[in-house]
């Protein structure tokens, strides 16, 4: 039996209440999925920019879904590693004018998701909703600072833009995270 299979059994036996997970699979998975998240966000944010630049609806949903998915499956520090990998590449590829603020946003939102995921069983839709609520609120507050300080947008516009992005992220990412986790479980990949 391979180490990966052993880890999988230990993981499934120990339940999902752990906060830290530092096995090779979690660390490598975090990095690779950080890159995947970044690439899919490149596609979705560019689409957002074409549709209506002030709102990042598709990009926000993609970001929140990946933050939730990786944190839920690989725990910490994988969530943080994934977030920071994604933030660094976002700066290097000019993904967004406020990409620098993705660094604190991804760190804090991943931690927020972890805290909720540790307290709840994450088996119900409501659990996913609460976790995404925490993630999106924390993440969008950080990005709101970026919109205000770098783009110098009026406070009212910043609040409306962040609220709409967070709202879409909470609803979209709740549905997508739950469906993706279930699909990945069924396929035997996690």
């Amino acid at each position, binding site marked *: 039996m391979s180490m990966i299979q052993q880890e999988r059994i230990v993981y499934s036996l120990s339940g999902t209440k752990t906060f830290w997970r530092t096995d090779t699979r979690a660390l490598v998975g975090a990095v690779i999925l950080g*890159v995947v998240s970044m690439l899919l966000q490149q596609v979705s944010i560019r689409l957002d920019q074409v549709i209506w630049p002030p709102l990042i609806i598709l990009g926000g949903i993609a970001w929140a879904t990946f933050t939730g998915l990786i944190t839920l499956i690989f725990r910490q520090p994988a969530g943080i590693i994934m977030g920071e990998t994604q933030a660094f590449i976002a*700066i290097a590829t000019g993904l967004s004018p406020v990409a620098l603020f993705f660094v604190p946003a991804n760190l804090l939102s991943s931690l927020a998701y972890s805290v909720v995921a540790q307290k709840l069983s994450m088996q119900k839709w409501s659990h996913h909703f609460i976790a995404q609520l925490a993630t999106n609120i924390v993440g969008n507050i950080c990005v709101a600072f970026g919109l205000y300080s770098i783009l110098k947008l009026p406070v009212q516009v910043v609040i409306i833009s962040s609220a709409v992005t967070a709202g879409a992220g909470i609803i979209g990412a709740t549905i997508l995270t739950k469906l993706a986790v279930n699909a990945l479980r069924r396929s035997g990949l996690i």
Partner: protein
Amino acid sequence: MALFESCRPRGTWIDQLDPRTKLAWMGLMTILALTVSDIKILVFLPLTVLASGLAAGLPFRSFKHPLLILIFTGVQIVILQVLFSTEGQVVAALGPVKVFSGAFSPAWEAFLRLSAMMLATMQFLRWTPPEDLTLWLVTTRVPYRYAMLVGLAMRFLPLMEQELGAIMESQRSRGLPMKNIRQKIKSLIPVALPFLYRSFRRANETALAMELRGFGYNSRRTFLRQLNITLAEIIAIVLMGTVATWNIWLKIESLWL
């Protein structure tokens, strides 16, 4: 066109430099981009990054794609400012939208800041081999299990980009339309899901391969190469650090007053 071009030796002086010097240069450019308010200096920053890249042997065509992205993002910033800025006098009216004179200065400033940061970060990734970054992190006492991850991310970025392209191509060949915006939005899930599955499988395989080669077996490991920093580079890093600290201090002072 590739979003990200991985680092490869070009046989120029930049290959001889220590990654800490390159990191200090990127850090200096980012800090200056964030702290400087003088528009003349902000114009000078992206140009300096471009000039240093060309001097180090990076061909101009390697900046073509980032510059196109920057133009696209610049247009987005201008639209945002035109839509929402109410500073200054009305210079034009486009239906219900009034364009104020104060919209252009913040847009130009934000565009220059973003250009400097993006070009400096991209330049750093293009001229720093992933192994050098791992070695540098190990010298800062980061456990090698974590230090290896930076190199892994840089290695996997072009690979995963190719994989995403292959999935898009295969979905297109199965008849999934991706021509207009609506079709592209609708195709997001059919592209993202197989990409996610493949990535999980690849992560599992990579982790297994690494463990079978003894990754994480010992808490310490040795490396074939060692980093050697010269005295001139140390002086350069100290100078860059001083300039960066001085600018942060000036920014804090200006915020207080």
